[in-house]
């Protein structure tokens, strides 16, 4: 008798089902844990309805599914396009530039510590693609731009300016107007040569400055001009 289907004790155990509040409480916990979908306030039957909808969608013909997928892709693309449109124009290339550019434009290889404003520098397009220098002649492998920058600069073992350089620029070193004028002339000659893409003249002027004023007032300007020279040299080799 006991343990059979007619047993009231077994039946009591079988009828011991949870209340709605138990179900809702556990459901909210599972929703918080991300196990269930976020329809917290949905009634109990909504999940079954969702499952039914899923089953109906699965049973749809292939053509309908493809159409629905295309519609979904179209809906997804709308916020992407609107997101692009909301960006400031300076941060994105124009349509013509985009069409003309290569698939993956890369930022021009310039040192990151360079100041934003370069008074005598030629304008540089940030999205301009830079190709790696191809070894055209059987010359030995060229070192990278960064390596050459480091090795060529006379005092450029450390790319960041030292404290002493700042102190010099601030005027702790006695200012010699004649030497400053000569330094300025050399640097301006190099920069104007760079504007004309006359790399040889620029290098000559910078070398002279390095020889005559190894610890001059315009060491940092020389260093930057040298980096620009090397950059242009790399570009010319690439073309």
């Amino acid at each position, binding site marked *: *008798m*006991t*343990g059979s289907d007619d*047993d*009231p*004790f*077994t039946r*009591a*155990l*079988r*009828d*011991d*089902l*949870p*209340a709605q*509040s*138990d*179900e809702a*409480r*556990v*459901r909210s*916990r*599972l929703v918080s*844990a*991300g*196990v*269930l*979908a*976020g329809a917290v306030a949905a009634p*109990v*039957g909504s*999940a*079954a309805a*969702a*499952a039914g909808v*899923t089953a109906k969608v699965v049973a749809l013909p292939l053509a309908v599914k493809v159409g629905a997928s295309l519609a*979904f892709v179209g*809906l*997804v693309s709308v*916020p992407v396009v609107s997101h692009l449109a909301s960006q400031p124009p300076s941060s994105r290339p124009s349509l013509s530039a985009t069409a003309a550019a290569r698939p993956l434009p890369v930022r021009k290889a310039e040192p990151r510590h360079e100041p934003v404003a370069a008074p005598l520098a030629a304008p540089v397009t940030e999205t301009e693609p830079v190709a790696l220098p191809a070894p055209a002649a059987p010359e030995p492998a060229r070192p990278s731009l960064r390596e050459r920058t480091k090795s060529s600069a006379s005092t450029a073992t450390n790319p960041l300016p030292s404290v002493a350089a700042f102190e010099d620029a601030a005027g702790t070193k006695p200012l010699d107007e004649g030497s400053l004028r000569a330094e300025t002339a050399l640097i301006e000659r190099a920069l104007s040569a760079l504007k004309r893409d006359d790399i040889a003249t620029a290098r000559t002027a910078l070398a002279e400055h390095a020889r005559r004023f190894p610890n001059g007032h315009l060491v940092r300007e020389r260093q930057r001009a040298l980096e620009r020279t090397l950059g242009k040299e790399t570009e010319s080799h690439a073309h």
Partner: protein
Amino acid sequence: MAAGTLEQPFAPPETGAARRASTRVEAVYSEYFRYVWRCLRALGVHPHLLDDAVHDVFVVVQQKLGAFDDGVPVTTWLYAITLRVARRARANARRDAWRYANTEPGESASSASDDAPAPGNAERDLECGEQLDLARRALDRLDEDKREAFVLSQVEQRSAPEIADITGVPLNTVYSRIRAAKLAFQAEVTRLNLVNRGKPNDR
């Protein structure tokens, strides 16, 4: 309806696969929550740990649903998970027994508080409540193997081959456990009835 379904694909943290998995877990939850809850309760999970145990079951369901073998009935798979979660919960309760020293193992926290009886059925509910309480106490006195066999066969009404799949023990062992569990449960119920009759004021 249409707006809801159109907005769903843009829910940021969920991919399509996660959404489908979530829908499947939702379907399993809606269909089987009551039985999982009842099974855990009958298997002796403490009322204070019941929510955690049910939660754990459906977390495992979510994790394993991708690897679920469609050839196996969902109930077998789900009861296997439930059984293991119940074992772990019981072990945790034994380990932390001092926390639940002042609570009766057979009492149901949620059912007692949330399910207010209908006005006309108070006497019947009281009788059912007494029967349920006595049945739980009888179950508490069975050893684990017998208790699992009894709950799965008599409460959840699973067949012996299915119980063999769920528990992972040989079929003949399942048959013998069910038989022994029925006898043990009957003996405990009889004994507790006698005790109650002898001490009517205890309850």
